[in-house]
């Protein structure tokens, strides 16, 4: 049986096709999120990658910020539940998930079965999110994926104290104007993200294993800063952007199984 999970975020669209809830057959990430052609394209691309069409898929679960506007999805489930399930599949020893996406941050506590025990999300604010890093990258005239490499070369992190994205932007500009190196400023930016996310994490309590997911988990500089801030080992998900989609595909499988059992 084949199931599909689609995760439509604010800045990217992700999809995964799984077989019998145990094997990833195909997956796809497109850097355009809800309200763009991203959702449609990611479905087409993932089907193509698996050499399938819609009729081969038994059940589709949509998740993410844009989950309610996916034509053809059989059901929509919140990204909290999907992430938890996806990370549990990839790293079963996970008990705490820190997910930093384009526009939000979530910290999720899960039990040994991957069920959600508790969660917190950031409020309407870009601080600590991927968006925050994007704004900073623009000021620093580099690409977001260069931030990690830059902070690796830092000698000493320049403290960035504003959590507000707008104020932090001007703080970064004045730190650069004061002669601080880009590398040191980037390290400071990563520390600032880590502080912000850590305070959210402490609300749910961080039980190991702690795993980071979401696009920002690909930035080793942030992960390192998080390790220091939380004084704990932090793993990263092997497929950080795809955990939501994988979780959705797994939940889709579970739904079909349940319905079958009920019919038998």
């Amino acid at each position, binding site marked *: 049986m084949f199931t599909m999970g689609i995760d439509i975020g604010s800045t990217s669209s992700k999809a995964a096709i799984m077989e019998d809830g145990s094997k990833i057959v195909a997956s796809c990430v497109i850097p355009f999120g809800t309200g763009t052609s991203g959702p449609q394209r990611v479905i087409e691309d993932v089907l193509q990658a698996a050499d399938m069409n819609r009729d081969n898929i038994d059940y589709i679960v949509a998740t993410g910020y844009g989950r309610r506007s996916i034509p053809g999805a059989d059901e929509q*489930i919140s990204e909290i539940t999907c992430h938890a399930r996806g990370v549990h599949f990839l790293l079963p020893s996970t008990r705490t998930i820190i997910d930093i996406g384009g526009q939000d941050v979530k910290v999720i506590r899960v039990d040994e079965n991957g069920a*959600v025990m508790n*969660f917190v*999300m950031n409020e309407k604010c870009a601080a600590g999110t991927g968006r925050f890093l994007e704004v900073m990258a623009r000021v620093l005239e580099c690409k977001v994926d260069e931030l990690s490499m830059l902070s690796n070369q830092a000698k000493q992190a320049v403290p960035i104290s504003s959590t507000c994205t707008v104020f932090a932007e001007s703080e970064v500009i004045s730190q650069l104007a004061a002669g601080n190196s880009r590398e040191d400023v980037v390290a400071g930016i990563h520390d600032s993200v880590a502080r912000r996310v850590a305070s959210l994490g402490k609300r749910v309590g961080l039980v190991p294993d702690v795993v980071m997911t979401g696009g920002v988990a690909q930035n080793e500089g942030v992960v390192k800063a998080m390790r220091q801030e939380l004084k704990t080992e932090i793993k990263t998900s092997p497929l950080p952007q795809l955990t939501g989609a994988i979780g959705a595909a797994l939940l889709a499988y579970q739904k079909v199984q349940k319905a079958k059992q009920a019919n038998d």
Partner: protein
Amino acid sequence: MSKVEEILSELGYVAHHPARMVEQWKKETGGKAVGIMPIHCAEEVVHAAGMLPVGMWGGQTSISLAPEYLQSFCCSIMKAVMEFTMSGAYKNLDAIICPETCDTLRVIPLMMRKAIPQTPIIGVVLPDNRKIDAGIKYTAAEYRSIVKQLEQITGNPVKDEDLQNSVEIYNEHHAAMMEFFKVAVDHCDIITPYNRHMVIKSSYFMPKEKHTVLVKALIDELIKLQPSQFKGHKVVVTGIMSEPDELLEMFGKYGYAIVADDLAQGSRQFRTPAPADDDPYIRLGKRLANFEGCSCVYDPEKLRGKLLKQLVDETQADGVVVLMMKFCDPEEYDYPFIKQDLEEAGIPHLYLEIEQQMESSEQVQTRLQAFAELLEERKN
């Protein structure tokens, strides 16, 4: 339309038309109306003066004038109140009573005096030491002082027996509300989160004796019906209020029923009766002394978490939703204590930051949906 629907629709109308209700009351009785700001000012004193007490808990409006007085980090209720004050929405109120509930409310009377100098603004300070004898006497004295000021507005003296009578009417109303909450648990399909709120909110804009009649009739009708087999998620809500309407509709959409509340606008107003005493002012003082579990009254024992646990046990609720009014410092200060108590008791809870004027509902929806999924998973 069934009788239940009829009553609910009448109460819904009242809840959504406070200004019209005040107008109508004035026309019918020739009396005056007095606004009462949150949270714990005994309405009985206004009732005893023959005036209509009107709850002033903000409302739906876009905020454009209020920032002249209030910073952006004030709660949305007070922003709405100041907006209404400045736009003239309260012109039909003959006086406004402002209890010093929190740091934001402390300064509101001053701003109101400046913004609407024609309306008498009556300040009242309720004591932190509310339980000791001196505290009870002090509360009584504050209420006496309000009554004196109201007498000047109406020109009529308020006798002790008038206030005794009002206290009785309110005790009866509050008991009816608590009874309604209990009965409603068996009818979650009809008494949706939204309908439940309409029953509460309407009580702020009509004479309590009339409201009592409607609530009792509603109870009678509900009892006649078969209890519903509710399959969704039963939750207890705690916080200042559960507005706006869209929030309550979302509760409905994701399969929640509110089986009990610990809301400042809800049960906190109704759950503690005024005990008997020859002096009606002392009765009000003693009620405040006996009252427990609100972020806005001093409670060194931090009983609120325990009270929530009790509500969950009594109603067999699946969890608690903490409706955190953004920028409400008293509620924020309480949260760590209730969080700890709920976690120790193994009761799942959702922390949901709300504003009375909701600009976007996406974040709230995701949280409510995820919490519903969490509760569902616990059942399996």
